[in-house]
């Protein structure tokens, strides 16, 4: 029987529909909050991330570059986000020394583990790019970055056949913790690791990288969001899987519910 044949006065029907809609709406809202706290449901929603990465990777198959801007487009102020001064003792010592004795470790599934001093990194061919940094919160800032392409470093180290991901271990404890679970880290797969715009930046807007922006080295992976741009990179580890590392999701923010693929 269709609703239009109900022999009831229009007024109460209307009231009933309004009240019913409001009640349903209220139920739906509290239901949505419950669902938002259920890990199983969040995992279901997270299936969309798989669709997003597959479609974006298909569309990005030719390896197009992120837009590069003119020097006049650079943001007057670039907001430093996350950690701005790692408290780690080793980091503080290296900083006091101007990173002269510091070196970047490259190890894991590589044929030749490397220990690259700043001098050696700067002696390698560099790339400079003026790009947009997009925070997951919604804001953007444009800056120029100079550094070594990550692909060159990985070639120099030589990847073993089982290598699948590149993990960046950082000096900062973004969420200070006793067990080290608050240490910042990030990971990329080989598609982004070997993209020409993926660089280990040591200079920003023509100046040596300042501490709030990740001195001595920060990662730039231009087709993804800000939380992928790990600062204070101390060690690069090549792995076949990252599920046993940290919270198991491949990065500090990933372990806190954000997508591993931050292209959207």
């Amino acid at each position, binding site marked *: 029987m269709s609703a239009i044949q109900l022999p009831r006065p229009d007024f109460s029907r209307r009231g009933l529909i309004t009240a019913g809609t409001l009640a349903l709406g209220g139920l739906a809202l509290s239901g949505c909050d419950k669902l938002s706290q259920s890990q199983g449901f969040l995992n279901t929603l997270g*299936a969309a991330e798989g669709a997003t990465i597959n479609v974006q990777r298909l569309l990005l198959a030719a390896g*197009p570059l992120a*837009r590069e801007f003119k020097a006049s487009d650079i943001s007057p102020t670039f907001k430093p986000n996350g950690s701005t001064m790692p408290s780690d003792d080793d980091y503080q010592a290296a900083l006091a020394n101007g990173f002269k004795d510091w070196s970047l470790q490259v190890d894991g599934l590589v044929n030749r583990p490397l220990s690259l001093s700043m001098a050696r990194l700067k002696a390698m061919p560099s790339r400079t790019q003026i790009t947009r940094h997009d*925070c997951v919160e*919604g*804001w*953007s800032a444009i800056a120029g970055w100079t550094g070594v392409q990550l692909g060159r470093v990985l070639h120099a180290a030589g990847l073993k056949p089982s290598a699948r991901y590149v993990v960046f271990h950082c000096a900062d404890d973004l969420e200070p913790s006793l067990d080290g679970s608050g240490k910042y880290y990030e990971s990329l797969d080989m598609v982004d690791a070997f993209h020409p715009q993926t660089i280990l930046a040591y200079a920003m807007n023509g100046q040596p990288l300042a501490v709030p922006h990740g001195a001595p080295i920060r990662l730039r992976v231009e087709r993804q969001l800000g939380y992928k741009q790990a600062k204070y990179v101390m060690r690069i580890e090549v792995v076949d899987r990252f599920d046993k590392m940290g919270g198991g999701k491949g990065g500090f923010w990933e372990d*806190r519910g954000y997508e591993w693929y931050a292209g*959207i």
Partner: protein
Amino acid sequence: MSTDEPPDQSPVDPPPPEPAPAAQPAIMVQPQPQPEPRPTPSAKPAREVIYRHTLVVRVTHWINLACITLLLMSGLQIFNAHPRLYWGQYGADQDKAFIEMMAMGSDMDHLKGVTTVAGHPFKTTGFLGASAGADNAIVPRGFPRWATLPSFQDLAVGRRWHFALAWLFVINGLVYLGFGLVNRHFSRDLAPTREQIRPSHILKDIWDHMRLKHPRGEEAKSYNVLQKLTYLIVIFILLPLMLLTGLTMSPGFDAVAPWLLDLFGGRQSARTLHFISANLIVLFVLVHVVEVFLAGVVNELGSMITGRYVVPPEIHS
């Protein structure tokens, strides 16, 4: 829009001989017995019922409603992570904002919500900038708890909802668009007729809307011109704009289609347009729902559920 059909074709005409996916006839005229206790003097002896909304239109309508509601609320959750809007390629805390929501006050117990639009501040405590948190104390928030998904502050969860629903919205929209083209729903039901786009007709239609006068009889069997234009703007401008400005905010998609950055004037402009367009869709939904109530909620709502619409009889006086 297509003008290859006779301008005066009304939905009463039998469907054109085409491979229509729906097996049902487009129109059903059912003379039904008058319900006993309702002798309405103005009504004809038989009620005229037409088949107004095809199954695909009805199903995609309700999926779209669910998607847009959840997209809006999860979008406001994402917006709350940075309740400022800019114009251009970049924009962050130190840059000039076009719209800004913030909480002001000397201490956390006396927060006031202030929304600044193009330099003009407005007090919006309780709604924008500062509103009740979990324990009912006023906390800094862009949009209030009842408007966001989830109600509590959680950008990661908001993004999960938003990007999952965005896929459903796109797939549902493609089904609707594909069906509308094949079935000629757009050219038959939504394209204004030559008669309807005459200025005198449009003015009369505006006047009828202002008097809250709704068409009856033959006229009620097709959409009026303001209704058609509104639907066309929402379907072909606002909803695609939501998708395109949303994609422009994706750094990955910007590498695929850098022309989007030129089209919208930058990622931050796209974010602002995404917000404005979402507001216009909310405005549309409010007017749409008011019109449904004014035109007769049972008949209108019922027709979007069952497909069958009772034509309001002409009033003979």
